[in-house]
C-alpha cells in the first residue's frame, strides 16, 4: 500500500468525508439514505474469526456473520422499518469511530482500509457493547460520487461480544 503522501490528497479527503458521512447515516438510523451509497453488485461480508497458531489462517469465509448482496441489505433495512423489528426497536444508541484510513487507487476503484470502533448501548442498560474491527472496502467512483462495491469486515473477536448483530458495521 502506498503512503498517504503518495495518494492524491483530494481523493484522500473525499474518502475520509465519505466514511464520516456513512457513519453519520448509520448512527442516525438513516438506513434508506445509506442504501443509496451501495452499488447494485455490492458484496458485504464478515468472516468468522479463529484463534490459530501464528502463521495459520485465522478467518473462515465459509461461515460468515454477514454475507449480503444489494437485495438482502435492502431486505434487512425494510425489516427495520416494520413495527416488529424488536432487536432494534427501540433502537440502540450507536457511535461509530472511524480511524486509520488508508487509501489506494486501483483499476477497479479505490481500495480503502479503515478501523471501526462501535459503541452500542440499549434500553436502561448502563453498560455497553464495543465492537472493534477493520473494514476492507472497495469504493467505486460513479457520477453521483463514491459508492460501496465491496466490504469485508474483520471483527477482532473469535466470540463476538454482542447479543446479536442487528446493526450494520
Amino acid at each position, binding site marked *: 500500500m502506498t503512503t498517504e503522501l503518495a495518494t492524491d490528497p483530494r481523493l484522500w479527503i473525499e474518502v475520509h468525508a465519505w466514511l464520516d458521512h456513512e457513519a453519520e447515516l448509520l448512527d442516525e438510523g438513516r438506513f434508506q439514505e445509506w442504501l443509496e451509497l451501495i452499488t447494485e453488485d455490492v458484496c458485504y461480508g464478515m468472516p468468522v474469526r479463529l484463534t490459530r497458531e501464528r502463521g495459520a489462517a485465522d478467518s473462515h469465509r465459509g*461461515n460468515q456473520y454477514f454475507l449480503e448482496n444489494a437485495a438482502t441489505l435492502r431486505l434487512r433495512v425494510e425489516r427495520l422499518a416494520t413495527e*416488529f423489528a424488536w*432487536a432494534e426497536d427501540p433502537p440502540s444508541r450507536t457511535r461509530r469511530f472511524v480511524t486509520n484510513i488508508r487509501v489506494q487507487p486501483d483499476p477497479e476503484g479505490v481500495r480503502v482500509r479503515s478501523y471501526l470502533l462501535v459503541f452500542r448501548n440499549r434500553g436502561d442498560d448502563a453498560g455497553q457493547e464495543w465492537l472493534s474491527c477493520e473494514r476492507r472496502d472497495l469504493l467505486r467512483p460513479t457520477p453521483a460520487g463514491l459508492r460501496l462495491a465491496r466490504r469485508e469486515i474483520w471483527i477482532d473477536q*473469535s466470540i463476538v461480544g454482542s447479543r*446479536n448483530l442487528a446493526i450494520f458495521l
Partner: protein
Amino acid sequence: MTISIGRPTETGPRDGLGARLAARVDIDAGSLPAFVFNDREVYERELGAIFGRCWLMVAHVSEIPEPGDYVTRTMGTSPVIVVRDEKGEVQVFLNACRHRGMRVCRADLGNASHFRCPYHGFTYKNSGELVGVPFQKAAYGDILDRQRLRLLSARCAVSHGLVFATWHPDAPTLEEYLGHLGWYLDLYLGRAEMEVFGPPQRWEMPTNWKIPAENGASDAYHTAHTHASLPKIGLIVGGSKFAEAGYHVHAGNGHGLGLGMPTDELVFPSEMLDEYRRRLRPEQFQTLIQVKNSHCTLFPNLTFVLSSARLEGEIVSHLNMQLWQPRGPDRTEVLSWGLVEKDASPRWKERARRHYIITFGASGVFEQDDAENWMDITRNCGSPVAQSLDFLYLQGLGRQPATDFPGPGEVYPSKYSENNARAFYRRWLELMLHDD
C-alpha cells in the same frame, strides 16, 4: 420411552435447592417458577447434574475429516479437544495437562499429531497417551507412571454425523439416549450426507441457556408475534397458519420437536430426492417431502432449525444447529453452524448458505429478535419480585395425541403446544433432583 441414567431420588430433596424446586415446580399442572432462569445455585447444580451427565454434541464429523484434524470445544464449561486420531477414530479429551492443568491445545481448530503443554512441555499423542516428559530422568527418576497419565478421556460416540461425548461412565448408549429422536434426526441429517459451511459463528448472549433450548424444543407459538416482521418482508409465507399447522412431538428423554407441514411446494433441492429415497424409509421420505420447516432441541442444549423461504424469488432451505453453552446464570455462548447436502448443486449450496446467514446466524433476522426476548426475560428472572412468578406451561394439557402421523414418540396435532417444554423440564428436574 424414558431412559433412567441412575437411581432417582427416593428420599426426596435433601438440601436447600431441592426443597426450593420441590416447593415451586409443578410440571403436571403446567407451572414453573421464574427463579430457575436466573439463579446461581440452579446454574451451579446444572453444570454437574445436566452437563456432567448427559450426552453432549461437540462437533460435526465434516469439521474433522482427516486424521489429526481437531477442534476445541466445551462440554458445558469443561474445555475439550475433539480429534480424529491417526487410526481415524474420533476421541474427546479434557483440554488439560495432567501435570498442572494447563490447556495443551490453544487453537480453535487445526491438524496435529501431538499436543504439547506450553507450561513444562508434557507431550501427548492425538490418541491421548503421554509420550514426552522433558528431562524425565532428572526430574522424576523412575517414579512417574506415564501409562496412567493419559489426557482425561470422555466417552464418545457418533450418530447422524454428530460427535457426542459424556463424562458419565454409566450413561446409556448414545442410541438409547437419542431414542425415538433418531427417526427425526434421519430427516434432518440422515437424508443425505451433510456438511457444515465452516466453523461455527460464536457470540455471547446475556440469557440463561434453558430459554433458547426450551424455545427450540417447544415454541412454535412465538413465531407469529416475535417474527411478525418476516411475513411483511416475504421471508415467511403461509399467512396466519404459518406457525400452527403441523405436529408437536416429544421423542422421549426431553428431546422435543415441531414439524411444520404440509408445504405448498418442495423446499428441498430436487436433485437430492433420489438420494433421500435411498437413505430413508418410505414413511420417512413421504414425511420429509411434506415438511416446510422444523425446530428441535436435542436435550439438553442442541437446537436444530430446518428453515425454508422464498429468497430473491426462489425457494431455498437449510438446516442450522445452535449449541447453547452455559456461561453463567444469565450468560450463554452460542455456537451456530449452517449445514447443507454435500452433493447438492453448487448453486443450491450457495443460496442455502446465504439463507442461513440472513435468518439464523448472529445477524439473522429470526435470531436477533429472539435474543431480545430471551435477554429481557433473564434480567427479569434475576429480580426478587419477578422470581415469585410462576410461568405458564399449559398449552396442550389434556389434548389427544395425533393418529395420522407415521413417526414415533408422543405426537400431537397442531404445533401450538407446550407439551415438549413440560417434557424438557421433567427431564431437567429428574436430573437436578437425582440422588448420587
